[in-house]
């Protein structure tokens, strides 16, 4: 599920649902309560608009393996200042 909402941090301001360009996040009414639901995860474009608009820092992205980037190390690349060490 691409955007993951931390319920402990979420203040249910509904901004992510309003802003999402793909209508992935919806507000669902369950018995008087309004729930923020990542309803259409497969329609997410991974644009991070929801993260940028969430003032509670309640959203993190999980990048699905369907969007795996392929990479290759360059044997000759200078790694002396490499962050990964």
């Amino acid at each position, binding site marked *: 599920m691409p955007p993951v909402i931390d319920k402990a941090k979420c203040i249910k301001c509904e901004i992510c649902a309003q802003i999402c360009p793909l*209508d992935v996040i919806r507000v669902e009414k369950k018995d008087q309560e309004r729930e923020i639901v990542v309803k259409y995860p497969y329609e997410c474009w*991974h644009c991070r608009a929801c993260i940028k608009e969430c003032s509670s820092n309640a959203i993190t992205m999980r990048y699905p393996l369907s969007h795996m980037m392929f990479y290759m190390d360059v044997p000759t690349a200078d790694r002396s200042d490499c962050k990964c060490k």
Partner: protein
Amino acid sequence: MQVKIRKEIIKTELLIIGGGIAGLQAAITAGQEGTSVIVAEKADTRRSGSGANGNDHYMCYIPECHGDDFKRVISEINEGMEGGPWQDQIMLRKMMKRSYGIIQKWESYGIDMRPTGKWVFEGHAMPGRQRYHLKYDGQNQKAVLTQKALENGAQIMNKVFINEVLVNEEGRAVGAIGFSLAEDDSEVIIFQAKAVLLATAQAMRMYPHGNPTFIFNTHSCPAAAGGAAIGYRAGARLVNLDVPYIHAGVKGFARSGKATWIGVLSDIHGKPVGPFLTKPNRETGDAMMDIWPGIFGERLDNGTGPTYMNCTELSEEDLKYQEKAFESEGIDSITEYCEQRGIDLRKSMIEFGTYDYSLAQRGIDINLDGMTTVQGLYAAGICCGNVRGNITNASVWGDVVGEHSSEYVKQVEEFDISEHPLIKEKIDFYMELMTKKIGAHWLEVNSTLQRIMNDYVGLKVRSETLLTAGIKYLADLKRYSVSELKCENSHELMRTLEVLDLIDLAEAVALTAKNRQETRGNHKRVDFTYTNPLLNDKFQTIEKTKDGIKMAFRDKEK
């Protein structure tokens, strides 16, 4: 789920469909002229469309930087990504002449057009040549344009999807039909307008993209799903659908913004593959990607690939610069992805791929005022087919339409649309879709559409037999879809109508591809392997008329 109907008809002078870059610019300009404007946007204009989170290159002509030799400017632009045979030269000249004016406006609105304090031109460039892409920071552009449109009196209706433009018996655009997505029950909204602007962007999701099972893995915003079909059904002429446009970028995680990468295209050993760069160059970027975006696919097919974006030789300063530019461009998901999976651009190259056909800047045929062949129906941005230039295209033609439509609405009378027959027909159709108990989900249709387009109207080969079969299968798919599709809620109703739009456009692509009996650019006919010089200065058009579908080759410059 229900379909509700809003009783009151919403009236305005200019109705703008799609609040992306073109739609918002038109709203600002028309608002300034005192025109009453409504923007109907299916998402939220503050973060919608392909410019949602930013852009960083604005192609422009700034005389104080580029000199007075305008002819030379145009000839150099024609050699780059945005020029060439599919650009109407008169439109290009008008667009470039107005580009500086828009940059000044954007700067005055609060978009950072010179993050370093100076005009800096970088990327999409050839070594030794003048550069025309202004490097700007567009990350707040949609919020700023929205604010400006509101200040100028425009009304913005977010979460409203428009499905049809209403045309009266005189052939004039007079309104539109849409519905609200705010609740699960959809609420139909009818608009009456003196003029209508289509600014709905391209048709993603017609061809398979990064990963065929995840059809929203597309290089541009996948919310752009064939809005040009709304114009096509209303009678507007479409142009240039038959010669595919292809793009390139990160493979796997499809994303535009290739020019924001400033490394060198390299083979698996890290050796440059193109003639332009051996060391990274911030100023030009690797022009190979613009000139030959097919390089990645072709090198895979002939076994010399894969091809990588190699940033390993960037200095620390350049790496930081690139990372910052990813934010301006709205592609910082790439940075976050790399962080999460421990990919370090200092030692690893990222594979790039050729993306499939996307219909960007293939679509509605407009004149120098931005009007389509339907009176009162305008189009702007990348849903248009005879202009190219992305952000420049969208903002300049949005501005042109804002001006022209403001004059136009003063000259025409309001037309009462309450009895328009399409309204009842459409509401009945939505009700049928929303109340059916058993039926097809839109994704079934979208995936089959992609399969048909890939196999029969594809990029690799085209022929009479393949295209004939493709046209037949598309008609079958449409027939089945109209009778079998069902939706659970307003969100699915939007996706369902989008896929029907995509089929309408796909049919127009297939018909025009069959009608172009020659090979040209990425339109490769195995049964007509030569390029016909008689078609050199022509664009192919298609339109729905009372007598059926009409195709023609028109002169490029009208």
